[in-house]
């Protein structure tokens, strides 16, 4: 019994010593979406948040065309947990990314409409991100669509 207690205390000590410093709570939400034009090299730049992202991969994933980014603009917003939501006109999906070392890694690809979004826009509705497209709107999280948000999905879901 005595040995068990010593082992338990030892484990607690080791766990405590290895724990990572965490600052909380942290809110990463952007108040409004950024609408960023894609340049000739496929890059978008946001001066307010000082970020620069290459979107060639995003457009290729959506349209399977490496030049489909030309003349487009990307709509982007960040939720309170720090996930980036990106979409654009004619996209069928909303892409959710999380940051990694010098990259944005896909967290979730949320299928929205088989016919593509016509005039998509993001609104910050903590803790959700609201996706608006004409008369339709729905709430999203980095995990997907919040089912009771009243969005009528067209053409099935992924």
């Amino acid at each position, binding site marked *: 019994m005595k040995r068990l207690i010593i082992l338990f205390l030892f484990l607690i000590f080791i766990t405590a010593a290895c724990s990572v410093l965490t600052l909380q709570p942290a809110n990463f939400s952007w108040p*409004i*979406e950024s609408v960023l034009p894609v340049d000739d090299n496929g890059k978008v730049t946001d001066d*307010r948040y000082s970020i620069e992202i290459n979107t060639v991969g995003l457009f290729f994933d959506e349209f399977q065309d490496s030049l489909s980014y030309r003349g487009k603009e990307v709509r982007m917003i960040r939720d309170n947990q720090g996930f980036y939501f990106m979409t654009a006109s004619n996209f069928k999906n909303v892409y959710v990314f999380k940051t990694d070392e010098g990259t944005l890694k896909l967290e979730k690809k949320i299928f929205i409409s088989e016919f593509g979004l016509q005039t998509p*826009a993001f*609104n*910050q509705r903590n803790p959700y991100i609201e996706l*608006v497209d004409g*008369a339709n*709107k729905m709430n999203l999280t980095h995990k997907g669509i919040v089912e009771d948000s009243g969005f009528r999905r067209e053409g099935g879901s992924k």
Partner: protein
Amino acid sequence: MKNNYLTKLLLLLIVLGFTSSIFAQSDREIVDKFKAEYTSIEKSIKDATTLQELNLVLDEITILKQGYAQHKELLDKSLYPDKYDESFDKLNKAYLLRQGDFSTIDVLQTEVGELKQQVEFLNQRNNELLVQVQKLEDQKQKDAKTIKKLENLVAELRSSIRERDELVLSMIDSLMPPTMRDKENLTIEDKDMVASEEKKDNVLSNVKTTIRDNIRFIQATSLKPKDLESIREQQKDFVTKWQKVGAKLVEVYAEDEDKTEELKQIDELFNEWATVVKQEAWESIIDEFSLNGIELMGFKNGEEFTNSVDMFIDDELKNLGVKSDEESKRTYSQFADSTWFASIQPVWMNYLIENKMLTDDNKNKMESKIAEWKNALYPSNWWIYLIIAGVVIVGAVLFFVMRRKKPASNVSE
């Protein structure tokens, strides 16, 4: 009637509710719309050309603030770096600043209007004073009372002309801002603005009147070097300011023959003014001699002045045997004691030499001539004193010799 109004209002509310339910609005769209309206109001404030136009903007600010009050929270978060209230504070400050500009313009316009009136008044007053001075100057016999009156009038006229000159200089100054003067080429808008300002205040005409009055003042009065120095300074100041603006006015009126002619006249008047100031010194010197009954041959420069004095003294020397001694001495006294040593040498000589109107050689030549004249009138009797001294010395020597010889004869006895 009331029912009709209520029906309309209800219909409007239904339509609005329906519309808002059909079109979900993007926050970004609200913010962008706000920014566009805000920028438009900012532009209206900057572009307003009258206070009335600016006052309309105040209503726009109020409408914008009321219209977006419901989105205050969103705008607080989205506007960067300012927030909702700060944005309106900025807009209100810009409005007040612009309002201040209009108030300043209003004050300046009033000042310019007053300036014009003052110049017109002074032009008339100076003219009257000049006529009075001229009348008094023309009186051959001037008693002490007239002289005093003349002096007072001249002082009043000088001060009045000076005052008007300052006002006209202000007009020249206000014709174009310094930044415009530094421009290599004026734009059409600049030219139009300058031409309109010039026309409004009759600047060219006032500049001409000012120079003419200054010329008349100099011609009508007999001035001292101190006055002339002051006039020279004033003239320099005027010329400097005119040169800066005048060159630009030539550009403004390149295609207006009448105005070009007027600008030429102003240049000629400036030259005449400079000549008259120079000439005035000689005129005043002639007057000084004349006041003491000495009529010299006219002169317009140092060389002629020297020759004139030289000739006058030569004539006097020639007349020494012809005129009575008393008369010759009286002329000398009037020339030398009452004029030359009383006013020309102490008052004018420095001015003439400093302004390079007379050389040292000329001065020495005239002074030698005056000395020669004096010697001819009052010959020096040094040789008489020498003879007297010689006689005294010889007498003394003889006296001592005689006294020495006397004891020797006593011894032999």
